């Protein structure tokens, strides 16, 4: 069974979407490790090490995603998690920036998949199944 770490990063307390993601992924047969809201990069990384995770899915709903996610990939590499996939989604930047640019910014930061506001978890599920090969 593949393991996915999920949580909401930074000073962000949006708990509902996080529950929906957990519900969907569990029902799709994944081992979900939900570290909850107000989580730091280190919280995600520590959980991924202990659980031998295959994927870390970062949620950010309050516009500060870029600040909160910066340096995360580097920390993953330092922690021996080079092969662990990184996804990010939600309202990850402030205001109405063109999503193409946002995607590039987060891609450059080392995120394998970047999702625009309003994405349904079912859409992401297809990517997860493709990336994790299940």
């Amino acid at each position, binding site marked *: *069974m593949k*393991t996915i770490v999920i949580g909401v990063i930074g*000073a*962000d*307390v*949006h708990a509902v979407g996080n529950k929906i993601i957990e519900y969907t992924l569990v029902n799709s047969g994944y*081992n979900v*490790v939900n*570290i*909850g*809201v*107000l989580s730091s990069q*280190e*919280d995600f990384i*520590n*959980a991924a*090490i*202990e*659980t*031998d*995770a295959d994927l870390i899915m970062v949620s950010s709903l*309050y*516009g500060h995603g870029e600040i909160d996610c910066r340096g995360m990939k580097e920390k993953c590499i330092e922690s021996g998690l080079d092969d662990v996939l990184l996804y990010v989604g939600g309202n990850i930047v402030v205001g109405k920036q063109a999503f193409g640019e946002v995607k590039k910014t987060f891609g450059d930061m080392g995120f394998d998949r970047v999702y625009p506001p309003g994405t349904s978890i079912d859409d992401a599920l297809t990517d997860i199944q493709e990336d994790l090969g299940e």
Partner: protein
Amino acid sequence: MSKYLLVDFGSTFTKLCAVDLETEKIMGTSSHYTTVLEDISIGYHKALNLLFDKLGKKIEFEHVIACSSAAGGLKMAAIGLVEELTVEAAKRVCLGAGAKVDLVFSHHLTKREVNEIKSGQMDIILLSGGSDGGNQENVIYNAKLLGEMNVKVPIIYAGNKSAQDDILDIFENYGLDGYICDNVMPKINKLNPKCARGKIRELFLKQIIEAKGIKKIESDIDQVILPTPNAVLQAANLLSEGYLDEQGLGDLVVVDIGGATTDMYSMCYATNRSDVVLHGLEEPYAKRTVEGDLGMRYSAPGIVKSLSEREIDYINKEKNIDIVKEVNERYQNVHLLPEDERDQFIDQFLGEMCAYRAMNRHCGKIHEVITPMGKVFNQSGKDLSNAKYVIGTGGVIINSNNQKDILKQMSNILGDSTQLRPEEPDYLVDQMYIMAPMGLLAQKHPMLALKLMKENLKELK
């Protein structure tokens, strides 16, 4: 006709407490230097004679049970994967079982670290790592290295369940003295101490007591059943929670300042507020922490090390002492007992520093976070602000001329809103050294142990 003798073989003193089950009273207490190097029973018999002298007659005890922290206590090495998770979980399980955690390691062990385990004469190793179904590679690597380097110390494996079979094979292949337990952290941030704690206690009974020359005493007494800190933890837990219709005291904190360590026990849930988000490993209701660098003698230098140059200058000027010199004197002469008012004054000050610093580390921390959804509070550790009682035990506090000033250091004296220290506690002192004995008595007679604690802990006005 039912009389209990409860014995605490401490590193310095052997303390006795006689309890009469019929009258439901403590008959008397006594103490004598522990004589573990020559023969532990010498000190015990001297203390027993002192007790008989006090009572004015010899008494036949139906039950004699003991706890021990003599001969260095129960020394353990805690090994995990990530520092904040399985390493912390392993450490907490050891501390809760009443052990001294001398060595703590994370990730892959190195040969140097294994040599430290060997030369440090550990009694037990607790090997953990990985949540259930999670990382297996690390614990397997570590178990193999312990095997390759021929470690003779008993090893309790309490890591990832999925690695149990491999670990068992490694134990067999290398002829290790290994035991398998439930994972101390089966899920992220979930603490599961029960199985490993039980195994630690079992090994303590079966092997450790014998190895420490304490077994000899068992011709005189029934059994040494617990490490002393575990007896204190159980007593504090009982005192807090109550038993059947006998009410407990509610949330409380116990501090024991010794020569080498400052132990702190808190009995309460992590929080009872609804407006905080808890972070980190799950906090147990009954939690013990040990500060190995804060103590009155062996660890006195640690007190100075925790201060800045500026603080040292300030203290020297304010108190008119040379703190560095005083601390070194105590470190070099660990048997020093205060001879005059000046010595007492300095010991009192060191005791206050230990209590203050140890609480800094034990209590939870809270930070306000401003989010677009308003203010929220981010908490790590335990919220002790509603603790009703702060209880002092151990020689330094019991013998102090100003007990309350030491215990007050545990409250929020500086009004620091980020530290979840007790806000307005009442203060109690274990004047007769009964906490550990009551932990022992509670094994069979929890109701009486609870009543005796409520009766005999002295309230400080």
